[in-house]
């Protein structure tokens, strides 16, 4: 896309501003090519290292561009604090996912180069998505994000559940994309513009109750809700999360969700801000449904991945509530919660992956039973992650929820704050169940597992055949992210400073 644009001599391209994207795409190509080399060492060690290097470069370049606010390809993309913070988030999630899948099954089965190249490509798509300034780039970014993910879900080719997960995600994701693009087309039809700012200007000049426009807005919302797994468009989430390789699930749960909310913020608070009287009630209703459906759905789950999938639906509801208020405070609370959400979820997933490899129980809750006595270095991160997800003080989860509630109350949505609180109450039941399993139940006897060669627990144990004991990087990820969760729970001011300016670009419209 960039090369083509350069040849046309059309738009001015700010290469410096686009440098994070260049690092991602360049890294993707290099990783793909290096992955073709024969030696095992290169494929299994050098390729992930290169991936991490590329993501590290992305973070470095993002920090280099910090506080710049320029259009990159004459209006198609723009770099601002929102996009840069999001990029940090994606790159952080990417590094974590790379470490989590380093000695995992998925990259081995699907060729290492392909796996990591796809992941970098997906992150590049996320960057385009959150930096998009018109509806065309938005759609390109969304597809660039989604298509690698469809493949990544299916990378454990020998396992039916993984293939099914990829297929399901492909079909549902395509429906979501189609809805979105149809909605974008209708908005273009109603306003005659593709730029976010131009559309916003057109709406403010009195098109706000145009039926064509309203239909477009509704379809765009539905399309984005598919991506962010907002109920009632969430049904794919548990199945896909459960079937996909766990590192991919972790990556999807945090990065894709963050990308979806990043673009949701920009679309609603910039492009459609003139329509807010129409979309605010709809979003409030969706947030309420999502919080309830997610939390109730998670209650009876025995599979940890399914439980976290429903929990991610519930958390998406909380985040959506922050979007709903459509104030600068709300946008900041949303961003802050996305960061917090990343920290606590990665910690949880790292522990789940470690247990998948060490026990024959897969992602069943039995896999973590008795973990407190067996390996406290995994038990504490999981405990902290669950407490943080439940919003207990001294964890970043509490700060995130606190900020969200105060944004809701000051935005006049006290009732939604109460819904959020009620949702949190329900969520305690399933988060604490995990903690109870970790600390209060003995480890299940090994006899059941070894008796049968094939894993017998539902969901399988896709990673069990990777030699146990090689878990240092998993423990490392779990501890780092859990420590960050606690650190930002006690010293949250850096997070507040980080998101302080991010909403400024939006606030012009708010």
């Amino acid at each position: 896309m960039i090369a083509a644009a350069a040849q046309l001599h059309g738009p001015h391209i700010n290469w410096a501003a686009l440098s994070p994207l260049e690092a991602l795409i360049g890294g993707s190509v290099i990783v793909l090519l290096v992955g073709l080399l024969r030696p095992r060492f290169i494929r299994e060690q050098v390729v992930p290292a290169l991936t991490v290097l590329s993501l590290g470069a992305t973070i470095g370049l993002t920090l280099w561009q910090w506080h710049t606010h320029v259009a990159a390809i004459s209006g198609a993309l723009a770099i601002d604090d929102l996009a840069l913070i999001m990029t940090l988030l994606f790159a952080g999630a990417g590094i974590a996912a790379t470490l989590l899948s380093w000695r995992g099954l998925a990259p081995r089965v699907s060729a290492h180069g392909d796996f990591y190249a796809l992941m970098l490509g997906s992150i590049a798509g996320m960057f385009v998505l959150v930096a998009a300034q018109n509806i065309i780039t938005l759609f390109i970014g969304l597809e660039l994000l989604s298509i690698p993910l469809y493949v990544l879900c299916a990378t454990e080719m020998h396992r039916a559940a993984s293939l099914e997960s990829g297929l399901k995600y492909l079909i549902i994701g395509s429906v979501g994309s189609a809805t979105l693009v149809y909605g974008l087309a209708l908005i273009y039809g109603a306003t005659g513009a593709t730029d976010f700012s131009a559309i916003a200007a057109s709406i403010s000049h009195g098109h706000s109750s145009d039926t064509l426009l309203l239909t477009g807005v509704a379809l765009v919302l539905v399309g984005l809700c598919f991506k962010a797994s907002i109920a009632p468009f969430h049904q794919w989430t548990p199945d896909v999360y459960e079937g996909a390789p766990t590192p991919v699930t972790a990556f999807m749960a945090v990065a894709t969700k963050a990308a979806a909310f990043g673009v949701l913020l920009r679309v609603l608070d910039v492009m459609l801000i003139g329509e807010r009287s129409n979309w605010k009630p709809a979003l409030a209703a969706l947030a309420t449904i999502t919080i309830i459906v997610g939390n109730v759905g998670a209650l009876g789950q025995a599979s940890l991945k399914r439980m976290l999938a429903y929990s991610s639906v519930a958390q998406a509801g909380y985040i959506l509530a922050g979007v709903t208020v459509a104030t600068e405070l709300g946008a900041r609370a949303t961003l802050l919660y996305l960061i917090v959400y990343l920290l606590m979820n990665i910690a949880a997933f790292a522990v789940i992956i470690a247990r998948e490899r060490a026990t024959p129980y897969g992602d069943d809750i039995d896999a973590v039973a008795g973990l407190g006595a067996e390996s406290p270095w995994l038990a504490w991160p999981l405990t902290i992650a669950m407490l943080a997800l439940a919003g207990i003080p001294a964890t970043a989860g509490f700060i995130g929820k606190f900020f969200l509630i105060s944004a809701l109350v000051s935005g006049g949505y006290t009732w939604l704050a109460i819904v959020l609180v009620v949702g949190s109450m329900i969520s305690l039941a399933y988060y604490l169940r995990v903690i109870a399993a970790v600390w209060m139940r003995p480890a299940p006897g090994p006899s059941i597992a070894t008796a049968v060669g094939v894993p017998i627990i539902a969901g399988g144990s896709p990673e069990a055949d990777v030699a146990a004991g090689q878990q240092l990087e998993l423990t490392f990820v779990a501890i780092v992210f859990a420590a960050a969760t606690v650190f930002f729970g006690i010293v949250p001011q850096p997070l507040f400073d980080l998101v302080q300016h991010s909403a400024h670009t939006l606030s012009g419209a708010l």
Partner: protein
Amino acid sequence: MLSILIWLPAAAALVGALIPARRVAGLLALGGALGSLGITIGLIAGYSGHSTRLTHVTNVDWIRSLGIHYSLGLDGLNLFLVAMTTFSFVLAIAAANLRDWERSRVFFLLFALAESAVLGTFLAQDLALFVAFFDLMLIPFYLLLGVWGGPNRIAATLKLVLYTFVGSLLMLAGAIALAVLTSEHTGHPISFALSTLAASPLHKGTQEWIFLLFAAAFLVKMPAFPLHGWMPDAYREMPVEVLAVFSGVLSKVGAYGFLRIVLPTMPAASVHFQTPILLISLASVIYGSAMAFTQTNARLIAGYSSIAQLGFITLGIFAFADQGAQGAVLQMVNHGIVVAPLFLIIGLLAARAGGSDDIRDMGGIATRAPILATCFLIVTFATLAMPGSGNFVGEFLILLGLFKTKMVFSIIAFTGVVMASVYALRVFIRAMHNRVGPQVQSREISLRYGLVLAPFLAAIALFAVYPQLQLGRSEKSVTAAIAHEKALTQTYDTLAGAIKK
């Protein structure tokens, strides 16, 4: 200074948890708790009680963007509650050191963390900080109960956590709403400082629904009558050392929350809901007492008697009279230092009755173990508020205060005092005299355990002869805490009088 007081136990235990030796963790936790107790004694000695101003104030920005401060302060209201907390924790941790625990390092870490959280709750002068400590407090107890508790601990933890967290989360919403709406009301930037919130109360209607959110959290924590569903299971399953501080200290946090937060920041709502709260408290007194003399499990008897006692305390607070509130604060401390040794003794008795908490399995120990019997007798007398005990002074003041403002409640509540003597003596007689139980092995109390109980008895004796130690220091602060309500009720009364005329 106050920060050291709060974090010393947790820090010491954290060091203990990182040292791999077995015994060290418990001793370090004890050392940390002792350090806090030492600081507290120093604070009591240095506190005059001449003004209502906070002393030893720590105030630094915690989350600037939300106006949340790490703000601690000491006044007559929390001084003795802090003292009671450090005191009980020292002795409970000492008692816990006399037993072997599985995974002892984690155990003592959680125990000390609990102490830090409770102290933080008592000392916090910022609403958000209070809420944070209030919620944090529950996590160590949740794990202590769930990992080291009795056979039915899983169900017990679930009930405990669901009840109390539901209350906590409601309070969280209430706290945020209170601060946000106050800042909108006054036009100042948002602040959670209690002094700011108290300076500009909200409209009465707004106050009322926020009051209900707070009341839910505090009444569950106490527990008060209809919200006590978690209590029996949790009390039955918790290790006695943990239960001693849980019942002795944590139940006071709810009552303290009313005095520190609800009454100063929501005066109109407090007056509005005076009668319902008094009714709930009265129901707690009667229900708690009635249950206490029908139960046979010694822990539950003590538990239900706690419900009754907390009912008394709440009655005292919501009497909106000086004596009532003072009696309530005194009684909080008294109850803490009485119920903690009570549970420890019950633990000893159960160990002598083949591990059963049932008073029908006990009995006949008194002649063989006279010292244990004497300890128990003193604690029993204190529980039933014998004249001459500190509890007598406390209950007397509460009833006196209540008599002045709400005479009918006072008269009914008095039956609770009578019932207390019935159930307390019943436990004592059943456990100490009567026939020897089938599996009872009468052993005298060990010297080391005796040394743990002795300070409790000394404290009971101290407050019996010299309650002025506390009353003198807390008087001003307590009176200030209920000043708004007193003024409001008097205004209403004069208005009502004028209308009648």
